[in-house]
């Protein structure tokens, strides 16, 4: 029997909800059918609060909190969809689009891309910032997969799934700030790295940055839903 203190009651978007202690705002919101946009977060992986799309407003605080890592407290009042938040979310997406080369029309993930879907949901019609158009490489050295850094948004899902689920930790991040890149091993070619060829990173990548070799033009839906089931089965063992 749980202690009374383990149950928290709070308000999300004027809806009274209850939560268990230690739950994140995002978990509670989703349990109650309230949608908060996310990009770096993925069910089954640890959360890093990197993309800031899930920022929410808490009554009594000027600070915006990332819902994927902020835990609930008693009598909390959360707003997930205010004009201020929508503006921030659009700006974050614009920054992502301006940073690298996202050309949807010729991307394998066109129509299945989380970045594209979010942009549509957030009503993004224009990028007000100048595009940086960096000249980034494509690593096609792997037998089965390709990484196109032009489409990478540095969500680090690949890094986390490789380290936490596959246990290989082939992917990591190098550089700082605008020079950040995901790399395999110590910045070796993917094809000659210690990759186990499991393909989990490809399935969790929210954009067309990681994809099956040979796949083109919208024919590459991804299936990241396997993660919670995989975790469940491992825990059951």
């Amino acid at each position, binding site marked *: 029997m749980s202690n009374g203190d383990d149950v928290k009651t709070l308000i999300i978007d004027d809806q009274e909800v209850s939560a268990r202690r230690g739950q994140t705002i995002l978990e509670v919101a989703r349990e109650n059918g309230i949608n908060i946009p996310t990009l770096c977060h993925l069910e089954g992986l640890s959360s890093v609060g990197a993309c800031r799309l899930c920022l929410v407003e808490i009554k009594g605080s000027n600070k915006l909190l990332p819902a994927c890592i902020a835990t609930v407290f008693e009598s909390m009042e959360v707003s997930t969809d205010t004009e201020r938040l929508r503006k921030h979310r659009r700006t974050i997406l614009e920054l992502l689009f301006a940073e690298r080369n996202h050309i949807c029309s010729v991307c394998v993930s066109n129509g299945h891309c989380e970045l594209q879907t979010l942009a549509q949901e957030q009503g993004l019609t224009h990028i007000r910032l100048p595009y940086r158009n960096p000249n980034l490489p*494509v690593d*096609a050295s792997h037998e089965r997969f390709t990484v196109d850094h032009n489409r990478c948004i540095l969500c680090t899902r690949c890094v986390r799934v490789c380290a936490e689920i596959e246990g290989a930790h082939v992917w990591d991040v190098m550089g700082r700030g605008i020079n950040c890149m995901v790399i395999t091993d110590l910045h070796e070619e993917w094809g000659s790295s210690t990759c186990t060829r499991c393909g989990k990173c490809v399935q969790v990548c929210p954009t067309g940055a990681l994809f099956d*070799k040979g796949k083109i033009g919208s*024919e590459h839906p991804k299936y990241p839903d396997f993660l919670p089931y995989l975790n469940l089965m491992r825990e059951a063992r």
Partner: protein
Amino acid sequence: MSQTITIDPVTRLEGHGKITIHLNSQGEVENAHFHVTQVRGFERFCEGRPYYEMPGLMARICGICPVSHLIASAKACEAVMSVRIPHTAAQLRRMLNLAQMVQSHALSFFYLSSPDLLLGMDADPASRHLFGVVAAKPELGRAGVALRRFGQSIIELLAEKRIHPGWVVPGGVTEPLPAAKRDEILAMLPAAYDNVKLALDAYKQIAGQFKEEIEVFANFPSLYMSLINEDESIEFTDGEVRLIDADGHVLDDGITVNTFTEVIGEAVEPYSYTKFAYYKPLGYPQGSYRVGPLARLNIVKSMGTPLAEKELAEFKQLATGPVQGSFHYHHARLVEILYGIEKIEQILNDPLILDKHVRATAGVNRLEGAGYAEAPRGTLMHNYKVDENGKMLWANLIIATGQNNNAMNKGVLQVAQHYVRDGKFTEGILNRVEAVVRTFDPCLSCSSHALGQMPLALSLVSASGEVVDKVVRG
């Protein structure tokens, strides 16, 4: 005092072009140029991308003939992969390419050129457009719109999108043809036959009114080039290239994609971003040749479909040897539309057309590959070099409009010399200068692989470089 006439932009073309006509001090036309004024750089920015992205990327060159680019590109990729695609995939692609040819020819003939043909070269420009045609000849206007729709609908049924479909991929196509879609296309055929018959009859009736234009619209002996089947019938998607001379003798035959660049060179002129293709053994510009509907009908011995066969025989009666006047491109285009419809019907009745095996797979097995297709406006070739991981190192595209470039320039000069007298020209004369370019149905955006906007402008420039007169349309 010499003068220059500039037509900028040239209207009713696919893409943006400019014409300049240079007059000497006697007011006679000394020289004339057709300029393509943009550069796009497709060959450059595909470098570093995976080769199998090329069909989708390269097709973005053009919204009119993306299918030809898709096919030429996919074939170049298949050469890199060293695969032969399944029969059904080849047939489906052939049908897609024919559907595009029908819609593009319908666009060229009805939307772009029929205002000149049906309303007259000197008709009021305010009504000299497709809507004018629809008002004056509603049946023909409707037929044109319907034929374009016919081609576009087939592309959409097969490939899901009318423009830039992702269905054609290296190795074949992504989805087989369901029976319901086959039946839907079959049901569209009777109306298409009626419409093209209407257009052919109408064209033959009015062609007689254009004797003067037929004489001077790029009417000169030249070489011709197109794809052709082993049995000497017309081919748009496979086959090998044949080149004939001005008398119709075979000059070079069985030119494969691998030997193409050995015999075809590309020259550059300072006034255009579009290159000038030529047959190397004869040098430039003597080795210049024409491609497209006129070239195809001049080269082939048969169409392989009954109705078009009769039309081909009639077409060949226009001249002994190759038909040299570019005005006849219009006629050839209509014959090809008829062929396209008949061939689509034949393909749909192929017992294997619904087969589910439509894609072959392979990795990089060769570091260079090239592929042909006949675009509506002529032979198209894509040539790629890749590294061992399949990343593009280099690309070259040889586009129909580049191959017709010299003929278009000669045509512009011929028309200008014939019509511009004493440095004087009328709107109707300028329209004829544009109309000669329209006979080729050039695709300027493809040819300059172009960016930006350039509507048509025509200027008359004096010997001292002074612009004497200028007509601008934007």
